[in-house]
């Protein structure tokens, strides 16, 4: 396959990058692309852009001219889904809301068994929820000595944000016994639930 030449000499930043991106868009995977620039900053920026996006340009210099050679490696650059960021409410994020120590409205014994199952399995779910919200007696799941405190901590370490209702913690007088998650307030909790793509309340 012949090389695609992008001549960005004489172009000011960020024009060389715009032309590079255009060439990536216009050509198929495997295309050999050569970008010519005539200032070092543009060269560095294009090189950085390409390596950030998983390509390894070969850079050579000829006096004040720089040549970047690379191969288009994938059909799309990393995560081109711009829409998801414009409308956060419509993205795939979801929140799990736990308002009780147990799951469901059946017998407490069954509810406790289900909670154990839920907590044990949640970390396997892909994608993970963006947040887990604990309120009402659900906050007791997070106190020291709860069989679930470790599972919650584990989720937190995986990037799940754990919001714990501050009013509820105060009601049960457990503030000193909670060492996981963030003690939060109604505004933050409501905002989190409002912005979530979905709210799951098992």
């Amino acid at each position, binding site marked *: 396959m012949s090389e695609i030449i992008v001549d960005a000499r004489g172009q000011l*930043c*960020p024009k060389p*990058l*715009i032309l590079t991106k255009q060439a990536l868009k216009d050509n198929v995977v495997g295309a050999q692309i050569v970008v010519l620039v005539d200032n070092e900053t*543009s060269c*560095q920026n294009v090189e950085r852009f390409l390596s950030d996006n998983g390509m390894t340009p070969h850079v050579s210099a000829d006096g004040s001219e720089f040549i970047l050679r690379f191969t288009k490696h994938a059909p799309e650059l990393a*995560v081109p889904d*711009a829409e998801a960021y414009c409308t956060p409410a419509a993205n795939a*994020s979801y929140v799990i809301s736990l308002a009780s120590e147990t799951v469901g409205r059946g017998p407490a014994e069954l509810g406790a068994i289900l909670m154990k199952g839920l907590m044990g399995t949640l970390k396997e779910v892909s994608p993970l929820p963006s947040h887990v919200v604990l309120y009402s007696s659900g906050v007791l799941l997070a106190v020291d000595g709860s069989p679930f405190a470790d599972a919650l901590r584990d989720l937190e370490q995986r*990037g799940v944000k754990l919001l714990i209702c501050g009013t509820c913690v105060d009601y049960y007088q457990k503030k000193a016994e909670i060492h996981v998650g963030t003690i939060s307030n109604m505004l933050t909790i409501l905002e989190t639930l409002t912005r979530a793509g979905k709210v799951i309340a098992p």
Partner: protein
Amino acid sequence: MSGNFDLLTTVEYGGCSAKLAPGRLAEVLKDLHQPAHPDLLVDITTHDDAGVLRLDAATALIQTVDFFPPVCGDPRTFGRIAAANALSDVYAMGGRVLTALNIVGFPATRIPLEVLAEILAGGQEKVLEAGGLMVGGHTIDDWPPKYGLAVTGIVHPQRVIANAGLRPGLALILAKPLGTGTLVAGQRTGLAADADYQVALETMQQLNRAGAEIMQALDVKAGTDITGFGLLGHALQMADASDVTLRIQASRVPLLAGALALAEAGCLPGAMFRNLDYVEGKVRFAPGLDYSLKMLLLDPQTSGGLFFGVAPEKAGEALNRLRDAGYAAAAIVGETVKRAGHSIEVLR
């Protein structure tokens, strides 16, 4: 007539993109030691927006200076933007403006003198709007033209809002949308929609005065304004000065209309890469974070918005007040947590 002269014909890059790379600046500043002074409340060490000196128990003096080459073609608009940008450093410290001095570089030939008159008129407008007095200035023969202000303000010594002073558990608020650097670059390369560019110009002319008053009313202790180092560069300075970790949720950061599409098209101002180098290793980016969005968090802002931490129970009120005061895009963009690992975590 000045109306026909396009100031952008004089510069290759403009606005805060013209700043020296932050890393290189830090290299130079590290050898400049100044003896501590009991009344010097804010000095150069915390990368703050202005110096603050206590005069007496009720008054501290704020001093700051900022200037740059043209960011837009119209001289009066440039004057307004440069002045709003310089005045903002007083607001970022929670202060109010007393006086300002013009700082001007302007060529003796090649540009009609009326252009200078327009730039100065734009600056004067903003100083008046700030409730300040223009008391003089200094002009040198220079190319390309440059304009800005040295500004003096005051604040109560106990009410200084600085980079240091965040504690864990605060909500982080950004008052203006990001993307001015990208929109300016997009306009220069002919890619930006004119309507989007006009909104960017409006945003840059907007004073942070009302925002500063709201910060004080809500007892905010730590804040800054977002300028050349981008949201993450300034957030990094606050995180390190305060010894907390900032969690920023990228999807909640307000962006100017058109900015994301421009970034998608590859319109990434070079200063973004300088800012990326600056924050590298100190910021943890969530896997799968959109590349263009990540780069916009590093977009160099001219006359950017206030960024501050507020007690979560006051966050809703802060947002309402900011929006009522004309900062329509103000948003909660994250929170502070106990320092752990990185200075900043960027979530998707």
